[in-house]
């Protein structure tokens, strides 16, 4: 288990590592079915016990393609658990000076807080924000990309997106 310091040092090497960091290992968080295709009405390849280790292959909407032993199929996304959890710092000091994100690694239970006081963003420090002068040219550029209603509607039609009427869901799952 690396020390916090070595973890921070590890961050400096990130640009070399690229996007290959996403972990493939997951486990089921309840007993579920391995389906042949994404969808409840698809054939069940095999039942999976709660806690069964799987390897993630791809994702599609509410379904995740996994390998379980020698079998491959689709599991409900809600039925998977991943090891890595980002730990948020519970420190409450007002200082924004340090890049002190704290991470938890696999196996360790991640404490959770709803807020963090200090954190680091690669390539973007609190000082960057503090020292930035407002870029009005960039703001105008950004606003020049706006889409009007007609072009948005055309765009939706091109992809056969048909609007439906649905009420917002209530907290706690009422519909």
């Amino acid at each position, binding site marked *: 288990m690396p020390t916090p310091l070595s973890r921070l040092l590890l961050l400096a090497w990130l640009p070399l590592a690229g996007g290959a960091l996403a972990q493939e290992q997951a486990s089921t968080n309840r007993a579920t079915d391995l389906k042949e295709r994404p969808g409840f009405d698809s054939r069940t390849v095999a039942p999976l016990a709660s806690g069964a280790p799987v390897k993630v292959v791809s994702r599609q909407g509410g379904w995740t393609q996994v390998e379980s032993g020698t079998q491959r199929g689709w599991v409900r996304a809600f039925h998977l658990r991943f090891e890595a959890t980002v730990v948020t710092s519970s420190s*409450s000091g007002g200082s924004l000076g340090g890049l002190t994100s704290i991470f938890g690694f696999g196996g360790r239970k991640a404490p959770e807080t709803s807020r963090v006081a200090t954190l680091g963003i690669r390539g973007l420090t609190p000082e960057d924000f*503090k020292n930035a002068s407002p870029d009005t040219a960039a703001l105008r550029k*950004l606003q020049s990309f706006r889409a009007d209603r007609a072009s948005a509607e055309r765009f*939706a039609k091109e992809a056969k997106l048909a609007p439906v009427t649905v009420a917002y869901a209530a*907290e706690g799952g009422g519909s």
Partner: protein
Amino acid sequence: MAALLLAAAVPVHAQLDFGRILDLGKKAVEVGEQVQQATKEYTVEEEVALGEGITAGFLGATKLHPDERLQRYVNRIGRWLALHTERADLPWTFGVIDTDAINAFAMPGGTVIVSHGLVRRLTSESELAGVLAHEIAHVLKKHQLSAIKSDAGWSAAATGAKAYAADRIGRSSGGDVLGLKSQLANAGVDLVKDGLFLRPLDRGMEYEADRIGVVIATRGGYDPYGFVSVLTMLAQAKPEEAGESITFSTHPSAADRLAELEKVVPTALEKYASQPQVAGRFRQALGAK
């Protein structure tokens, strides 16, 4: 998943960089009750002006991605989604910033920013729609304004500017906001300098935006599970990867958010699960071969 990152905690460093605006704010605070009134509601014009200042300040610290085709693509998705909300007529503006970190932000008044690092990790338009819809939800519920109001220093700055500028903005038919001459836009810039983006929204606001966002994406005709899929990706991201991002360290964990969404999505939205994911057009827009 992502949001403008604010907190209710009182910043001990709020005195920095505020200058004149803060002085105005202090005067306003002395007015007491009246100030409470004044901060209660922003007019749409005021909200937009504040948001433009925040966006200008934000763009001073980061930069837009050069792919204009991608920028316009994201704007069409975003505008389409916003059309199906109660604030369809805000000056909705969407943008991609040129960083590989995984992030997304919403500014008051209808500006939504996503990072290229996030977009390139997505697999379909329905996933991107899920992200944009979540940010749109923050704007609809004025979560950022609530956070600004709940922070003593920020609130003082914004209130002072608001008091100073209310009359002016009311009369100028919105002509000068882009020039950032409005005091509210300037206050927005100061809020960015003061760390507006470094502190998170309440967890409850994130869950609320998650719930509303999936409904907005569904209304737009997308597979409601696009955002669920994004959360799966986020849950999979390793801490090293996540460490690049404000989003990760300031939001509830992706696992917790999936658990919350599971209470809502299957009951209310499962019947729309066969709506399109639009993966082909997404790959094209991203320039993937």
